[in-house]
Structures are given as structure tokens and as C-alpha cells.
């Protein structure tokens, strides 16, 4: 995030914002000003998860100040625009990234929707300007729910929630292609897909799956590798054998066509 966008705030309020912002790395929130009763200025801020349903946001806002919340009339102050911490490369720190991965794995268990992790290494990415342009281009390609962060100095991590293996592969390859086109350095990518039936027991394990694929891409001929629990994810498709048996009683049409 450009430092020009950073708003200088000092004192206890700054500490408070900093605290919220640290949490917002894992759970993006928007701050809604709570108006004072005489309307002279905000009494405080209500921090709400950006992913919340609109109905829930309104209900919460209503509960906080019985209608005094200027939810609709004042612009939301999205936290990224109030950035106080160093966010030079628009990415969270490694430890924070692990917590985000953990939160996403938890979401896979609840929503039953898959999640993929793409690690892309841009070797000797010294030209930060060039990398910044590549990241900007990639952000345009990414789905709204995707989460981009730095994994290490040369590696970017992108979480792609909700996409099945095939869609994640298409998205990941598109991202890989953008990095390849926008930088002169060698680009290698590894993708791991997690499905609800086989959620890794820890964030570390899921990250290791992606790292393993990245290392394969680094050391082997290709530039892009992936791993997925194919059998589990595709296990719902009705097979020809199942169809054959379903129709067998109708009129002898249940032959398997090779």
C-alpha cells in the first residue's frame, strides 16, 4: 500500500486503530462511524467484518445506536485506506499469513467449499517497481475473495477460496502467466487444493503441500505444479456403472458404453 495513502493518527486512538488493523489482516473489517446524538461528530466506530451479510450489518448497527449510526449516509472507511503499519508490498507478514490460511481452512470445514493455495516464486525479484506492476495486474485477475500476501522475499502466496480444482487451476495458471509476462525473472508456481473431505490438520500442512509443488516447479523442468485430492473431489460424479444399474430395471437400456 502506498505510504501516501497512510493517515497519520497519534495517541491512544492510533493504538486502537493499529490494534483493529492488525486483526483486520485476517478478517477485513469496515469502520462505520457512530454519530453522537447531537450530530456534532462521531462518538466512535463500529468495526464490522466486510463479509457480513448486509442484513446482519444493518441489524448490528441498529443495535449499537438505535438508528444513530450513519451507516448509509457516511462513506465507509475501509481499513486498508487507514493503513498505519508498514505495508510496502501490500502483503501481510508470514505469521499473519499462516493465521489467514488457518481461518480459510476453518471456512472450508464449515462451508464445504474448497480452497486453493498458490505460491509463486519470482526469482531475484529485485525490481520492486516491476513486481508492484505485476501484483497490480494479478489483483485485477483475482476473484474478490482471493487473498494475496508475501510468503517470503521472493514468493507471493495467493489463497483462492471457493474454487474447485479445475477452476483453481485455470485461475492459478492465469496468475502465473501474468507474472511471467510482467517480469523478466524466472517464475515458478505451486498450487495445493484442499477439499472439505480432506482438510489438512494444520495451516502448516497445507502450506507445506503448496511448498512441495513449488519446489517441484523450481527444480524440475516445468514451471507449474499442483496437487489435489482428485478422487475425493470428483467422487460425486455419477459413474456409468451407477447409471447402468439405475436404468437396468426400465427396459434393458442399462448397458455400459465403452
Amino acid at each position: 500500500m502506498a505510504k501516501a495513502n497512510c493517515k497519520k493518527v497519534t495517541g491512544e486512538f492510533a493504538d486502537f486503530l493499529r490494534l483493529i488493523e492488525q486483526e483486520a489482516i485476517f478478517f477485513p473489517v469496515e469502520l462505520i462511524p457512530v454519530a453522537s446524538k447531537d450530530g456534532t461528530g462521531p462518538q466512535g466506530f463500529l468495526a464490522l467484518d466486510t463479509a457480513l451479510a448486509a442484513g446482519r450489518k444493518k441489524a448490528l448497527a441498529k443495535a449499537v445506536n438505535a438508528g444513530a449510526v450513519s451507516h448509509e449516509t457516511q462513506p465507509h472507511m475501509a481499513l486498508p485506506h487507514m493503513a498505519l503499519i508498514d505495508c510496502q508490498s501490500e502483503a501481510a507478514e508470514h505469521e499473519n499469513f499462516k493465521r489467514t490460511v488457518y481461518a480459510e481452512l476453518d471456512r472450508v470445514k464449515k462451508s464445504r467449499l474448497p480452497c486453493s493455495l498458490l505460491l509463486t516464486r519470482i526469482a531475484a525479484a529485485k525490481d520492486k517497481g516491476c513486481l508492484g506492476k505485476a501484483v497490480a495486474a494479478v489483483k485485477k485477475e483475482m476473484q474478490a475473495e482471493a487473498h494475496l500476501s508475501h510468503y517470503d522475499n521472493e514468493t507471493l502466496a495467493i489463497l483462492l477460496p471457493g474454487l474447485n480444482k479445475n477452476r483453481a487451476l485455470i485461475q492459478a495458471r492465469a496468475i502465473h502467466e501474468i507474472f511471467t509476462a510482467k517480469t523478466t525473472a524466472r517464475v515458478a508456481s505451486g498450487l495445493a487444493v484442499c477439499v472439505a473431505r480432506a482438510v489438512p490438520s494444520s495451516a502448516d500442512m497445507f502450506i507445506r503441500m503448496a511448498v512441495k509443488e513449488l519446489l517441484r516447479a523450481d527444480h524440475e523442468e516445468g514451471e507449474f505444479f499442483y496437487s489435489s485430492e482428485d478422487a475425493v473431489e470428483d467422487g460425486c460424479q455419477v459413474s456409468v456403472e451407477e447409471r447402468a444399474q439405475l436404468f437396468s430395471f426400465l427396459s434393458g437400456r442399462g448397458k455400459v458404453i465403452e
Partner: protein
Amino acid sequence: MKKNRNPQIICISSGKGGVGKTSFTINLAAALSDKSRQVLLIDGDLGLANVDVMLGLNVQHNLRETVEEGRNPLEILVEIMPGFFVLPASSGVPEMASLSYEEQAFLTDSLERIIGNFDFVLVDTAAGIGESVLWFNDWADKNITILSPDPTAMTDAYALIKILKTRYNKKDFHLIINNVKNKKEGQEVFTNMSTVLENFLGVIPNYQGAIPQDSAVSMAVRRQKPFLTDQPKSRASMAVREICNKILS
């Protein structure tokens, strides 16, 4: 309405559209309320609702307002007959057909706040295997799959059960065969489905019954009334009453 009951949530799905889910669900709700039970019918086809259409309602408020504005579902309830209430949904709203995970969770929370008023909560889901179909089924205590004796309906019903078993670890499935020539045909279709489900998925389904082909059904749809009240002595009405008794037993 008495509060703090412990309702049974029954989800009615089919996979294929046009199999008779909505018609069956409305009439099951009517039959249950006829037995002095408090019944809530939720139109789970959130983006293309038609429970209200089949009941001749012209509603002003629906579940879209709960999701988007936080409106209490109790304010949306429509009483059809004593003990039979409907929560209508919106029609022609693609956003409602693909709610985000958070919106789904919010809707479920909102519904859970009011279902304590009822003995039975019936969810008439959309056709297909979309997300709303799957999470309503996951939410339910009992999953009823309705199918007719044609290969497409059977395949789609099987596919739906396979997903619910594989991804959601659902084990209890109840089958209703609609639009059968006679009881024997219903039993045959069930036996065949049961064999395939057991062989490939290890699922042993329960037979809830069959509903015969009956002109009373289409006539009631055109009159926008439940056939149970429109033609209470029709074969279809008798069949739904039998299924209702089975559910109550």
C-alpha cells in the same frame, strides 16, 4: 403459537425440476396442520420462488428483506390456514439464488430464531444441486428426496443423494415416488433406487410412499390451492395423508 418447541426440520429436494416438490410440500404442510401441528413452510427456492404462486398469494415481503435488510422473518410470515404458515421468497433475483457463506449463515441464524414456534419446518428447495439446496439439506434433520419413475428424475435424485452422502456425510434418506401409475410401480422404483444406493454408496433409504398420477393435482395447481383441501378425497390427497401419518409415527 406456542413458543420454544423443538421442531423437526424436513428438507424436500429432488435434483430434477418439475418432479412435484412444491406441490407435495404444500400438501404435506396442509396435512400436518390438519393434524393440529404447527407447520412452517420455507420457500427454499430463494431466487425463483413459487410456493406463494401455488397458494395464490400476492405477498409484499419476502426472505430477501431478511437477508438484505435484516427484517425479522416473523414479519414476513403468512398464515395459510390454522397452523400452516409460509415464509415466501423472492422471484427473479439471481443474488438470492447464490448467497455467500456469510449470508447463508445469517439467514440460518434468523430462521433459527423463529422456528421454536413450530412443530415442523418444511423446506421446499430449488431444483438442482446448487449451494442453497445443499446447505438447506445440511441444515435439516430429515432429508426427503422426491422423484418420478423416469430415468432423468432418478439420475438427478441419485446424484443429489450422492453429494449429500459424500460431502456432507448425511446418512438418512427418505424417498417419495411421485406420479406413479399404481403402488406397485412406486415400490419397484424405490427398490431399484434402494439397490443402487446400497451397492454404490452404502445408503439404505427409507420408503415414505408413492403419490399416484391424479388429475386433482393439476386442477389444484391451476386453482392455486392445495389439492388436499381442493379435492380431499382424491387419490393424491389420500397418498399424502398416508405419508403424513408415517412422518408423525
